[in-house]
């Protein structure tokens, strides 16, 4: 609810429920990994909103519910599982861990699946079995993850297509791909985003949400996404700049809006890196300078914010949207009354 009384739908498109407690750390990598996340938390979160390190390592189901649904304005949260069994005994943020959150808050949590295309038939079977249980609408891929001797893969690798085909068959239409800061980047350029182009062209009927917008290759991402209508920018990490580095937040948003437009950006807080609370508050209050609005092709209007914060994700995930959250349509001159038409599941009422 804004000070003006507008109700805004908030879908956090990027949340986790992780366990980095000492007893779950398999080795020192488990510690250094969560420490890197901690650097992000401390670097970007306003001082009075920071958590202590132990709380950061483990906040549990009720902690997450409070941070997201009670304090954080979140109506729905999309969970993106990450295994990391090499670092954590029971995994870091596995489907099972996320499923417990889904079990406790079934109406608010959207549980995505995950797979590693290097797992062959075994992985395909598991995806099918997990889908039978959870009816995924999206999956998360982590191209830089280690798997045995492999230190990562690209979406061009020939073992990827069978998995994407399986997603089509199962009706999983949202493929989230982590293209952001990576764990063990070694080869040529582990951040490379050009493989997204390839897979998006090959599967035009699926949506590819590129998490973290390819950062640190956001420039390449903007260029590629601009040409592929089924590529979306998963914003997680970008809005976190809004407190510590608002100028760079604004620049990145302007580029994203120019190249992708307001209909293909999905808000994400990257929870538990930080809380959506302060990000949503600052985002709702944020405006471009006139110069930047011109660069972006649009001001950060209420309409744009509604789309980014919730309506775009609602469209991808078939979430029914209450009319109060929709973008109000100004009355046509020849109509005497104010109307708020709602397209089922859609948002293009302003078109």
């Amino acid at each position: 609810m804004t000070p003006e009384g507008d109700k805004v739908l908030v879908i956090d498109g990027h949340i986790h429920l992780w366990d980095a407690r000492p007893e779950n750390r398999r080795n020192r990598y488990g510690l250094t990994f969560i420490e890197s996340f901690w650097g992000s938390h401390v670097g970007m979160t306003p001082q009075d909103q920071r958590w202590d390190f132990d709380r950061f390592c483990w906040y549990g189901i009720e902690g997450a519910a409070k941070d997201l649904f009670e304090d954080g304005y979140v109506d729905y949260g999309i969970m993106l599982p990450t295994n990391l069994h090499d670092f954590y005994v029971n995994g870091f943020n596995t489907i099972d861990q996320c499923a417990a959150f889904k079990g406790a808050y079934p109406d608010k949590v959207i549980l995505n699946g995950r797979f590693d295309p290097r797992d062959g038939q075994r992985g395909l079977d598991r995806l099918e079995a997990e889908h039978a249980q959870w009816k995924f609408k999206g999956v998360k891929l982590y191209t830089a993850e280690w798997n045995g001797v492999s230190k990562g893969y690209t979406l061009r690798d020939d073992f990827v297509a069978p998995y994407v085909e399986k997603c089509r068959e199962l009706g999983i239409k949202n493929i989230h791909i982590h293209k952001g800061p990576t764990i063990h980047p070694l080869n040529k350029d582990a951040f490379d985003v050009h493989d997204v182009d390839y897979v998006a062209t090959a599967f035009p009927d699926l949506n590819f949400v590129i998490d973290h917008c390819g950062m640190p290759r956001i420039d390449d991402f903007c260029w590629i996404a601009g040409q592929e209508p089924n590529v979306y920018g998963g914003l997680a990490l970008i809005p976190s700049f809004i407190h510590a580095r608002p100028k760079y937040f604004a620049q990145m948003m302007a580029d994203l809006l120019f190249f992708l437009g307001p209909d293909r950006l999905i808000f994400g807080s990257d929870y538990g890196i930080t809380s959506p609370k302060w990000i949503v508050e600052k985002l709702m209050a944020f405006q471009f300078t006139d110069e930047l609005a011109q660069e972006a092709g649009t001001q950060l209007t209420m309409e744009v914010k509604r789309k980014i914060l919730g309506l775009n994700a609602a469209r991808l995930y078939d979430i029914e949207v209450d009319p109060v959250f929709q973008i109000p349509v100004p009355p046509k001159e020849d109509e005497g009354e104010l109307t708020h038409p709602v397209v089922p599941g859609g948002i293009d009422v302003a078109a």
Partner: protein
Amino acid sequence: MSPLELPVIDTAEKAEVMARLDEVLDPELDQSVTSMGFIESVTVEGRVVDVAFRLPTFWCSANFAFLMAVDMKAAIEQLDWVAEARIRLVDHFAARKINEGVARNARFDEVFAGEATTDLSEIRRLFREKAFLGRQAGLLRALAAERGVEGALALTLGGLRELAHGSGELRPLAMRYLTARLVDGGPVTPDAPAFTTLAGDAVLVERYTQHLREIRRVRGAAEANAEMCRMYLEARYAGARPGTGTILEGKRDAHG
């Protein structure tokens, strides 16, 4: 939050070393390793220089870390009084491999045999080209504000050189761009256009807006990345340091 500790520079030799390090760039960010706060300490013993450097996270890219270490070693060993420069990356998953490899002048793909299959010349070229575009964006925008678009685009390489060696406000931007333009962007005769595409074509007035948008995207990304690195580095080394994995345990080289 306590400030980030920087190396103590209390001798002329150390100052000379730091001046060399000022010239070493993080290839991805196109900013110097000193301005990024990566240099933790500099020690000089006789003709041997020891430089400890740190990065924003334990998991930062090994390839960029390796390139910076190689460049630091080469830059310092150019000083005629230096017999050996020892470069020590600290608190990093690949520290031991990188430090040993750089010390014996090994190639990246030798050091990471079985993990990395490519040498780093390609990535170096890629980011050198991004740096060219980023530097051009900075200068072109500033110059267009001063002279108008047509005036700015009329600048020749000779004119760029004058700006770079002149006393105007644009001098630092011009010098940065000149050093990139002399390597990339086509012919370098004095009458060649200063502002060119990577392919070496002059930037045309009617393409200005589009061109500037394309290259500002590259520059904006590098700047945002650098800010992210600064935030993480400060959180890691000047902040609360839950720091259980690195400094406080005194296990710097355990995994390195």
